[in-house]
Every structure is written in C-alpha cells, then in structure tokens.
C-alpha cells in the first residue's frame, strides 16, 4: 500500500465521521419535533400525570434537550446505545445485536442477487439493443421498478406460499426446529452450517428465498437501466471501434472491454442504492415478519421510543457510510485513473 493511498484511505474514513454525525443528530432532533410521547404511548391515557412523570424522570426525558443530546452521542460513540424507553427497557445493544444479523442475512444476498441479475440483464440488453429481447428486458425493468415492495411480497406469498405451498410464508425458520436451534452468531444460515444442523440449514434457506427475491427484484430495475445506458454509451466509444478494427470479437468487446468500464458507475450505484436497500428492507421485513432491525424500527417509531429509533437509525447510517466507503475504495482499486 503506497503512502498516498494510505492518506486517501484515512481521509476518506475521517470524512465518514461528520457524515454519520450529521445523520444521527438530524434524527435526534426530528424525533423530538414529531408529535407523540413515548411515555403516554405505552402507559396509555389512564395513568396519572405524576406516575408518568416519575418514569420520565427515571429515563432522563426531563433533562434539558442538550444534555439528552450529549448522552445520546456518548451512547453512540461507545456503541452502548442505552436502554429502550419502552417495552421493558431492554438494552438496545442486545436487541440490535440479535436483529442486525437477521437484516444482513436478508440484505446481503438481496444486493448480490440484484447486482448480478440486474447487471447481466442490462449488459445483455445493451448488446442486443433495439432487438425484441432488449424491449422485453426494458419493459421488465420498468414493471418491477414500479411495483411496491409489499405488493410484490404479497404476490409471492400468495403464489409460492399459499397456492403452490412451496415456501414458508414468514419468519426465519420453522418454529419446531427453532426450539432446539443453537444460535451463536444470529446468522441462521451460518449457525446451521457451524453446528452441522442440516434440517435447520434447509429451513433457513427456504425462509430466505421469498424475502430475498422480493427485496432483490425491487432494486433490479434501476440496475438494469443503469447498466444498459452505460453499456450503450461505452459501446459507442472509440476504443470499442478500435478494438473491432483489430479483429476482437463482439462478445469480448461487450463483456470484457465495455462491461469492465461500466463497473465504475455500477459500483457508485451500489453505494447509492444502499439507502434504498434499507428502506426496502424495512418493508420486506414487515411483509415477511422477518425479525430484523427494519421491523424493530417500525415498531419503535409507532411507540415514539426515541432512544431505540435513534440508535437504529444510527446503525443504518453507519451501514450506509461503510458501504459507500467500501465502494469508493473498490473504485479506487479497479479504476487505474484514480490517483491520490
């Protein structure tokens, strides 16, 4: 690693910090501006104001807002996150520790699926530009782009879950298996492999298929369109014409030369899509009762659980920051023109 690259790396990582900080601060203040009250929303209207105030005092909600903000930042920096305001005040750290792996187990394969599938279709459409298959692929991309995620999930559930009865409707594993299942990492697929629990592995994989496909397909449309547009642009460039004049085959020009140059905008897109991926994950988890942090977020927003919501968002912000960091680094590695 050259010293200039190290410098770039450090600068890039340092830049991530203000980015995350701004995001988590924003969500802190937005939550407090929103109508609703975490204490009232869980205790109900019948509890007296004194009782509610005792709870408020204990949870630190009566502190000046800047003190609360300071405590919140401290919690985030130490990765502690404090306790939830509602539902038994369970440490948020424990809750997220259990749920984050569930979300990752869903989003990582979804992202892989959408990248590979979307990029292949986009490249194929570009190669066959203006032929029927190109129009079919483009229609498909518009179609899946415009279907809401929950609707797509619902259709899958009806067809593959109810009608055909091939795939489980919701959850991460059969409840029968779950009673004896040893989970150490909370990545069920991983845990099943580690413990050589093959029935559990099979069940975990079956449970993953529909949510992954739903989330993955929802993002594929953008990948198809971006890849296709960039590939067509690339195929028009001089070096492709020059390659053809050297006798290089069309297949090699498309899939080797043009596609490799298209990876740069695609990597950038993957970075940008992460935010959308998370929004999609929230909807997918809700649709398939997937116990990830997306569903946790939805539940806690309903309860106005400030601390839980803030912390979850902080984790999301972190996630987005890391992915975009990784994509930038990958870009720097594959693009010889990027010099620091």
């Amino acid at each position, binding site marked *: 690693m050259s010293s200039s690259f190290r410098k770039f790396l450090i600068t890039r990582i340092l830049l991530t910090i203000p980015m995350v900080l701004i995001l988590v601060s924003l969500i802190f203040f937005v939550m407090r501006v929103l109508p609703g009250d975490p204490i009232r929303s869980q205790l109900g209207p019948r509890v007296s104001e004194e009782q509610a105030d005792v709870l408020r005092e204990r949870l630190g909600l009566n502190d000046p807002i800047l003190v609360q903000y300071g405590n919140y930042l401290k919690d985030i920096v130490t990765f502690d996150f404090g306790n939830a305001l509602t539902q038994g005040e369970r440490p948020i750290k424990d809750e997220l520790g259990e749920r984050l792996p569930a979300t990752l187990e869903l989003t990582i394969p979804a992202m892989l699926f959408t990248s590979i599938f979307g990029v292949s279709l986009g490249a194929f459409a570009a190669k066959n530009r203006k032929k029927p298959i190109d129009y079919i692929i483009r229609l498909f991309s518009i179609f899946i782009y415009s279907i809401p995620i929950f609707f797509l999930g619902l259709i899958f559930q009806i067809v593959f879950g109810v009608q055909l009865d091939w795939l489980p409707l919701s959850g991460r594993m059969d409840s029968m298996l779950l009673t004896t299942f040893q989970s150490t990492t909370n990545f069920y697929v991983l845990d099943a492999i580690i413990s050589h629990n093959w029935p559990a592995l099979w069940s975990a994989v079956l449970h993953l298929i529909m949510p992954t496909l739903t989330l993955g397909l929802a993002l594929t449309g953008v990948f198809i369109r971006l890849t296709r547009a960039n590939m067509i642009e690339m195929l028009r460039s*001089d*070096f492709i*014409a020059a390659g053809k004049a*050297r006798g290089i085959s069309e297949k090699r020009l498309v899939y080797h030369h043009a596609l490799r140059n298209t990876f740069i905008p695609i990597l950038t897109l993957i970075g940008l899509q992460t935010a959308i991926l998370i929004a999609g994950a929230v909807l997918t988890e809700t649709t398939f009762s997937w116990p990830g942090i997306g569903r946790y977020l939805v539940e806690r927003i309903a309860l106005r659980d400030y601390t839980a919501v803030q912390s979850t968002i902080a984790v999301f912000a972190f996630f987005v920051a890391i992915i975009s960091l990784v994509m930038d680094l990958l870009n720097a590695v594959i693009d010889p023109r990027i010099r620091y």
Partner: protein
Amino acid sequence: MERETLVSVQDLSVTYQTRIGPVSAVDHVSFEIQKGEILGLVGESGCGKSTLGKALMRLIEPPAEISSGHIIFEGEDIMAYDEEKMRDFRGRRTSMIFQDPMTSLNPMQRVDDHLIEAIQVHEPKTSREKALERSSVLIERLGIGLNRLGSYPHQLSGGMRQRVMTGLGLVLNAQLIIADEATTSLDVIVEAKLADQLREIRDEFGVTLLMITHNIALVAEMADRVAVMYAGHVVEMGDIYTVFEKPMHPYTQGLLGSVPSVELNDRDELFKMPGEPPNLTHPPTGCRFHPRCQYAMPICSQLEPDLTKQPSGTLVHCWLYQDHPDKQKNTLKA
C-alpha cells in the same frame, strides 16, 4: 515506378440511412492502392474520407451500409467474406490508426495487455510471454521505453499513445495501414515526428499506408500518390508531383490554391472554397462540384463524368478532360 496492386476498390458505395433520406457518403468509387505506397486521401470535412477508410475494413455499421461494390484485397473479394473471416482480416491484414489516441485505447487496460490481446485474438496458441516478447521488440523500435509497457493509457502523452496505436497496427504485420487523421490531434512537432516514423515504418516493414488527412503539407511531404475526394467521389488521383505541380480538377486547383505556403505554414490548413459543401441527401446532379465550379458547363449539371486517365497518368473526374457527343451541343445551347 509501377507497383503491384494491393487493393482494388470497384464501384464502392456507402449509404447512410437518415431520417431525411439516404445519404451516399461514398458514391460508386473505384481506385487502386499499390503495394508499398503511401497514398494520401484529402478532401474537405464530410466528403466521405473516414467512411471510405472504414469501408475498406468493412467496419461500416447501421444505419450505414455498403450498398454496392467490391473490395479486392490481394486478389480476393473481401465483400464475399463471412463475419468470421472478416474478423481474422481485421488487424491481421489491414489495420487502422484512429484520430484520437486519447479515447482509442481502453482506459482500464495496460499497454502490454492491449498488445498481447491483439496478438492472441488472432493467434490463440501464442503464449503471453511470446506475445510480450514480440510486442517489446516493436515497442522499442517505435521509441517507446519498455518501462511504458505497464502503463495505463492516461499515463502516456498524446504522442506516446499514438505510437502505441501504431504499434497495435503493426504487431500482426498487416500489409495495409489506414491512418485516419492519426496525427491531427498532436502538436506540430510531435505530428512531424510521428509522420517521419510512419514513413520509416513503410520503408522498413514494407507496409502500405493510406493516409487520411486535412494536412495538405503533410501529404506533399510524405505521400507517393494522392487521392482527392469531393462529396463522396474521388475526383482526382495521381502521382504526388504531378498533382501538386499541375492540378487538373477545378476542386483540386482550389484546394491547393487555398494553402498559402506549404513551406511557411506547417499547420493544419482548413480548406477555403467559395460556396457551401453540398448536402449529400440531395446531392447536385451531374458533377457534384458544379454549383461551386467556375468552369461549369451545361453538361456538368446533367451528366456525371467518368474517372478518366490522362496522359500524365492522373485520373480525373471532370468534363473538362472528357469528351461527350453532347458536350459541345449543350455548351452551344447555353
């Protein structure tokens, strides 16, 4: 000096299908390229030089097509080749150096990988090492340091990149090299150097060079013969001394007249010709130059002249040098 014929172009036409109708960018052109010569191809912008160059390698793509003619390369009509044979032809027997060396190399591929790929595409059995060895010899000959082999295109200067392009054109020993404004984007000194190098290469490797350019001075200095194109036609073609000494076609006369002094001004000269270049969707009838020609006769707007051989050996496409039973009559009528 009579040479053998390398390429014989017969009745070649290229038509672009555009929204406003077909454009005949190359219109029933016939000429020959001789083995080992440097043939300059000149003419104002849009007259069809690049299109002709690409057509010689059958690189014309929709919405354009080669709508008539034959290209006889060493006795074989390459118009009869299938796509597979054409692929083998390209790069191995004819190669092309493009105008913009900045964009003509894959930005994500190193110089050595370009060269190795060019070899291996045609000779899959050649090992990487062997291909690299062969490339290295050539690269050194072209004055590119071997330490440049590992560079990416953006790390090279324009002149260096163009030499890499030249290397790619030579690495498979192609007999015909088409240089389409290969030197245009370079500065004057680098351009002169590359031009010298191209001539050296011709002498050393015995290749044939078709040099498409706007730079008349460069043609005067380098070429053995010159072909002048106007609106899709070759209007004059001949030995460089003869044509420059005594241009016959009125367009050539104007073209050479518009270069103030070859010696004093070495830069690209834009052609200045009275009138507008023709619209090729609706080309002028007869001789396409007639609306701008000071010698135009009535027959000129009615019938197209043939490319006829003059006593000097020059080929000219003009009624001034061709007889026709109606020529006088029409003139009288006017």
